[in-house]
């Protein structure tokens, strides 16, 4: 059998980026779950502990990259799922820009949160 059910135009740029981000997310999501549920228990998390982790440049960079790739992978996945459901024309364009806007807002807020976790004042 070689049946495939995909929401993507095969072998397009978005298809390729979805695979690249997936490869990164597999590793980092598993690491995130292990660190914050098994090494450090979620119910023991404090701002001081979070600040200690996020003040390490490597960890900080990994988390920001995690945010960016997860947002792209999620928003791109939703867009392609909707297109696969038959979304087209003006509605497709509206959905595209709504998702781009939501993704950008999430990324900006996530970066503000990441900076605040280092102890930086990011209040507007």
């Amino acid at each position, binding site marked *: *059998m070689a049946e495939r059910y995909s929401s993507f135009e095969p072998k397009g740029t978005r298809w390729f980026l979805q*695979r690249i981000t*997936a490869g990164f997310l597999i590793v980092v999501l*598993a690491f995130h779950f292990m660190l914050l549920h098994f090494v450090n*228990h979620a*119910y023991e998390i*404090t701002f001081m502990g979070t600040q200690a982790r996020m003040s390490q440049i490597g960890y900080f960079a990994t988390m920001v990259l995690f945010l960016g790739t997860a947002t792209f992978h*999620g928003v791109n996945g939703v867009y392609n799922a909707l297109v696969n459901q038959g979304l087209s024309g003006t509605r497709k364009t509206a959905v595209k820009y709504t998702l781009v806007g939501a993704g950008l807002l999430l990324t900006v807020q996530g970066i503000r949160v990441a900076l605040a976790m280092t102890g930086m004042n990011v*209040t507007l």
Partner: protein
Amino acid sequence: MSQSYDRGLVEDFGRWQEFSAGMWAWVLHKFTGWVLIGYLFTHIAVLSTAIPAATGDPAVYTGTLQSLEELTVVRILEVGLLSVAVFHILNGVRLLFVDLGVGLGSQDRSFYASLVLTGAIVVASVPTFISGAF
């Protein structure tokens, strides 16, 4: 010469009893994907309590997270989140192999394996996720 395969509408859930393993894999990957992107927005919203915490009130962040963790329903939802995340990861790995042309002849078995492995990982993780909740 290419062959076409009439899969019917995956979206027509009224005929779910006729779904093949590949269709279930497609449906579950979509469902878990929607849950995960929804959770990402919620996660960043909750973690936004780090912003006032950084300006002198760390109890806002620590208190919010620890209060949520005290709720049994949150611990149960976390097990649910783990389930969808693990399935999405394992089925995603399977899809990457399929895209590379590896294991095309055993897609049914690899899908069932990802389901069984998800179940095993989640069951093994339950004690950690609910410790101190009851």
